[in-house]
């Protein structure tokens, strides 16, 4: 029953996560600042912020596309939710997620049907979303009056969880189940690995492309709406760095920008790594720069190890050493 090959995609993400925990624990020594119960909540809170975007962007990376527009969508969805959810937060959430879904569908449609590069199209989307959120808010931060919602979203549930982190954990679980149990996961990996082969194998590539961008848009929108409610305010985020942590989390989770690799659970592990790192360094009182540097180094190492010419160059060096 136990299939070892199923575990292979998770080996590296788990190893990186364990390494991060170990390093932080060693730095902490016996102070008990890192391995405490309060840190679990903060890790999960960060997980809830980065997770949805990482999952959406990660899925577009699995099919060998890239959704830059999430960076604009998070801000715009927050503004939409706060503006329309004044009487009923559900209405605001629905409006935001609906907008994310529709714009995602539209972008996916343009990319799939017109065969346009996704970076160009989603860059256009990013700037449009950013512009709309400035226009909606008049470039100001807007307040959400229903503070009860913010309180509710920030509440501890079962000690460690909160509503946003429970939502995203459930989403990850559902997506991972669908990805692993149905044909969908295999098809998505095939689209990312070799699109022409996928097409001739009868996979409906266009539908999957459009669906993935809609998924990514909806998740980013949900994240923005929840963020807006939790902070009880929303503001146009500028070209804030939503994209870099999300992409980093996906890459740490075993997704590659050259497509065809990665799993939703891997993305969850990658997001967890990033969250543990940030919360851990915070708890240890290290500056936020340490986080950036560490993430940069890990990403660089992954990029180098995954380099298409890495093995060939290694052999070249070995030969040269032997000759001399």
């Amino acid at each position: 029953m136990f299939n070892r090959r199923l575990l292979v995609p998770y080996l590296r993400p788990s190893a990186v996560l364990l390494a991060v925990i170990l390093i932080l624990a060693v730095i902490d020594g016996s102070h008990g600042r890192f391995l405490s119960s309060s840190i679990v909540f903060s890790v999960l809170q960060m997980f809830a912020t980065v997770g949805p975007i990482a999952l959406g962007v990660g899925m577009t990376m699995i099919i060998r596309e890239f959704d830059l527009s999430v960076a604009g969508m998070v801000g715009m969805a927050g503004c939409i939710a706060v503006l329309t959810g004044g009487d009923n937060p559900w209405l605001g959430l629905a409006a935001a997620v609906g907008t994310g879904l529709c714009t995602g569908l539209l972008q996916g449609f343009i990319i799939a049907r017109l065969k346009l590069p996704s970076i160009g199209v989603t860059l256009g989307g990013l700037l449009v979303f950013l512009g709309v959120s400035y226009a909606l808010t008049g470039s100001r931060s807007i307040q959400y009056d229903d503070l009860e919602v913010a309180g509710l979203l920030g509440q501890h549930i079962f000690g460690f969880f909160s509503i946003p982190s429970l939502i995203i954990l459930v989403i990850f679980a559902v997506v991972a189940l669908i990805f692993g149990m149905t044909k969908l996961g295999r098809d998505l990996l095939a689209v990312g690995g070799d699109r022409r082969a996928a097409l001739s194998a009868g996979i409906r590539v266009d539908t999957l492309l459009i669906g993935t961008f809609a998924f990514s848009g909806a998740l980013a929108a949900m994240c923005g709406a929840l963020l807006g409610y939790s902070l009880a305010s929303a503001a146009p985020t500028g070209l804030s760095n939503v994209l870099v942590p999300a992409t980093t989390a996906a890459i740490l989770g075993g997704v590659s920008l050259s497509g065809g690799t990665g799993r939703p659970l891997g993305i969850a592990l990658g997001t967890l790594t990033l969250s543990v790192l940030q919360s851990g360094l915070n708890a240890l009182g290290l500056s936020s720069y340490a986080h950036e540097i560490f993430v940069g180094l890990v990403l660089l190492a992954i990029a180098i190890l995954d380099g298409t010419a890495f093995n060939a160059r290694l052999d070249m060096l070995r030969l040269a050493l032997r000759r001399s």
Partner: protein
Amino acid sequence: MSTPSTVDRPGFRAPSALRLASRGTLMITVLRVVFLAALAIIALSSPGFLSAASLLSLVTTASFVGCVAVGMTLLTMSGNIMSFSLGATVSATTLVFTAALLSWGIVPAILLSLMFGALVSLAQGLIIGWLGANPLVVSIAFFGLLIGIAPWCTDGNSLFIPPGSGQELLRGKLFGLPIEFLLMVGVAVIGQLLLTFTVFGRNLMMVGSSRRAAEAAGIRVWRTTASAYLWAGLFAAVPGMLLAARYSKGNMDYGATFDYDAITAVIIGGTAIEGGRGSIVRTIIGVVIMEVIRVILLLNGFRQEWQYLISGITILAVILLQTTIARK
């Protein structure tokens, strides 16, 4: 908006000459002319557009992004899509320039800044070209390293340049024109000369349009890639120095939006995002279009933020029109 003539080069595909004949190109040309004419009419009818102050501000701010966009064009054309770390390179260069200026004076500061930009970018070019690493991931990694290491060195503070330290050399005017503008023109001319007249430029376009074909033709792809990154870093160091000199301050926020602004200009100018086709002249036109839109909005009392919406729509329109019409 003409691409340099490349027809007479042996072994080089000549898209411009062949495509000129097609109806699609004619339509694109008509659309371009209409767009530029409309933009010009709106600009000229905006009160105060032609005033010296607004033109001066237009030219100066366009110059900073312009230098980055020239470098970005080389990266896009070489098939590496875009970089997320050129803006951070600009910001870090402001710190390097400031620190070097305070310690050793203006000439070593300029040299060190250029070296810093070139080396940071060359390292990425080597990792991408020689090891075959993914360009976007490498640039994100370097973004993290730059914004992590640079403020760590300065404890997160800005560095200030006291007046009279020699930074006056890099601001002010020469022949009645802002020095920022002159340097940007210099960078653009160097970039276009590199593309049009050197073996590197020819190889770059070939690598960008088909990496495999370039390898088969005996081009050492990794060298071309590394050189493209080297130049891009060198060009990004220029606005770094200029910004530090202009505001007498080294600060990590200066280049924050430059990556997006630069790739926007590259795409609006009409350089293909998948690589192989494009020119510096087009990118500069893209930069000018964006700046003109910004100034028009400001003069007509709109907030500058509307620029994002218009840039986004323009990008989408350019990509849609260019690809769909060209394919017909």
